[in-house]
């Protein structure tokens, strides 16, 4: 069974440019989460999808971030325009069941904004 896959693994862009990160969850997992780890700091929750609906987006930093999950399958996270402080590793995770269940994480997408 394929795990959670994320693309790209590493992206280097200049301030002001746009980047789109993609996450393919484990097939059949209705829950999809985005998290971000800025260098040396905690992993922070960004948002939670249940199928195609945003269940909780309280962790999204600002309106430069847009997450979508069309059709309830893969998800994209767009940053437009990117700022220096957006640099970090963006993790996607999926799960099949309740909020007490384990999350399956992807390897992360490292974003570097110059």
């Amino acid at each position, binding site marked *: 069974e394929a*795990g*959670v896959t994320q693309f790209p693994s590493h992206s280097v862009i200049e301030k002001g440019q746009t980047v789109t990160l993609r996450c393919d969850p484990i097939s059949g997992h209705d829950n999809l*989460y985005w*998290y971000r780890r800025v260098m*040396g*700091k*905690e*992993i*922070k*929750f*960004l*948002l*939670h999808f249940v199928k195609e609906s945003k*269940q*909780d987006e*309280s*962790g999204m930093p600002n309106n430069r971030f847009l997450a979508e999950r069309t059709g309830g399958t893969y998800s994209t996270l767009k940053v437009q325009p990117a700022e220096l402080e957006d640099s970090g590793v963006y*993790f996607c*995770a999926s799960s099949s069941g309740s*909020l*007490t269940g*384990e*999350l*399956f*994480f*992807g*390897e*992360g997408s490292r974003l570097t904004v110059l």
Partner: protein
Amino acid sequence: AQSVAQPEDQVNVAEGNPLTVKCTYSVSGNPYLFWYVQYPNRGLQFLLKYITGDNLVKGSYGFEAEFNKSQTSFHLKKPSALVSDSALYFCAVRDWGADGLTFGKGTHLIIQP
């Protein structure tokens, strides 16, 4: 608001010795507690969780953790460390009603041969 503290950035243990990675938490209700491990260039992997019931929970790779409500702690333990246990360990908590996990900063565990 929920929070997690991992007071040690790094823990060094000799192979074969017992190990402990510390974690304390703060939540408004009953906590759901988790440990995840991250190996280099890999995603986080689930180790174990406490939801309710027995305070001592056992997980993958011989790890266990003890939930202590009075001390608000959930320390990760293993009786005999292996070099292959060397990795970055994250403690996380989910408060009742919250969607997302709150993670600690992570602890680098280094097992010396």
